[in-house]
């Protein structure tokens, strides 16, 4: 049981491209359909909590799913399984990138990657806004612009900005 929990999350961590949200359907398939560890309703409940808790969504989900299946040791194994592939791969990639930074091919590759990454960041913000229906509401569009302006033009810490906007949400 422990081994198969670890193995399942290890494979999810190793083969999911596209970040935390891309992982969720994969986790659901493994945990609900393939292993029947949780029902679809239980999983949906876990997701709504994972999305409303600080921390990367995938880590939250792994921790919660592991806990539901077999308590503390389950949550530790699921989380460890999820991050271990990243750790091995990224440490290796980091040492390669840092070592060959001045290689002309590497520089060529990154010459093209940089503008693309900028576009992906802007695109991610737009997609998030569309998915959460922020751009259909004038008040929320204004809040977005105010947050953008404060972040861009002042030195206020982003953590402070996020918390202030959260409390604004409670007050109004």
């Amino acid at each position, binding site marked *: 049981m422990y081994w198969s929990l670890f193995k399942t999350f290890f494979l999810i*961590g*190793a083969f*999911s*491209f*596209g*970040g*935390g949200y891309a992982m969720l359907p994969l986790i659901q398939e493994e945990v609900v359909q393939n292993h029947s560890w949780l029902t679809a309703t239980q999983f949906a409940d876990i997701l709504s*909590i994972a999305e409303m808790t*600080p*921390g*990367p969504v995938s*880590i*939250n989900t792994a*921790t*919660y799913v592991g*806990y539901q299946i077999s308590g503390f040791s389950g*949550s530790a194994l699921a*989380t460890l399984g999820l*991050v271990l592939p*990243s750790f091995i791969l*990224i*440490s290796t990639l*980091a040492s390669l*990138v840092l070592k060959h930074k001045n290689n002309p091919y590497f*520089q*060529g*590759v*990154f010459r*093209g990657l*940089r*503008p*693309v*990454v*900028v*576009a*992906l*960041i*802007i*695109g991610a*913000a*737009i*997609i*998030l*806004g569309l998915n959460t229906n*922020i751009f259909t509401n004038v008040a929320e569009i204004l*809040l*977005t612009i105010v*947050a*953008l302006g404060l*972040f*861009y033009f002042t030195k206020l810490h*982003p*953590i402070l900005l*996020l918390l202030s*906007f*959260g*409390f*604004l*949400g*409670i007050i109004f």
Partner: protein
Amino acid sequence: MISIKQKLALHRKLFISFIKIGTFVFGGGYAMLPIIQREVVNHHQWISEKDFIDMLAVTQSAPGPVAVNTSIFTGYKVAKLSGAVTALIGVVLPPFTIILLLATFLSSYSDNYYLIQFFAGVRPAIVGLILGVGLKTGKNIIHTSFDFFLAVLALILLLVLGLHPFLIIILGALSGLLYSYCKKSSSQEDN
């Protein structure tokens, strides 16, 4: 050579930074970018703005959660393997602890009115901050018409055609290689 004491201090700073990052990431991996940029690029200056973007190119195209990948890369850059472990534990520990506490004590947490309102307020701020990171880094990265063209093309591929980011990154890498190759051969002709 740096002393053991300095090394410990560096790891402590790294750990505290990533505890902060792990605690205040609301939502997905991109939501961490404003905080990680502030902590790692502006505050501690462990990574330059340009290296920050290069790092994101790697951590986005690799499998795994982007937030976790980015933490490991930053840790490695600052203090090799021990740094990577420190940053990883730092970023995972807060959500791990919070979820365990919630799972143990609260079962109807997500129905809480104040929490729902809090997140309703946070969401537009997250969108604004991520846009801010994009514009800030764009200002430093996008200089030539090639950069601009590539960025606009990538945005269209992502938003209009719905292409997977991984594919767009591969396309970016190939066009970068091609561009450098063409530029090199044309400058050789000039000589």
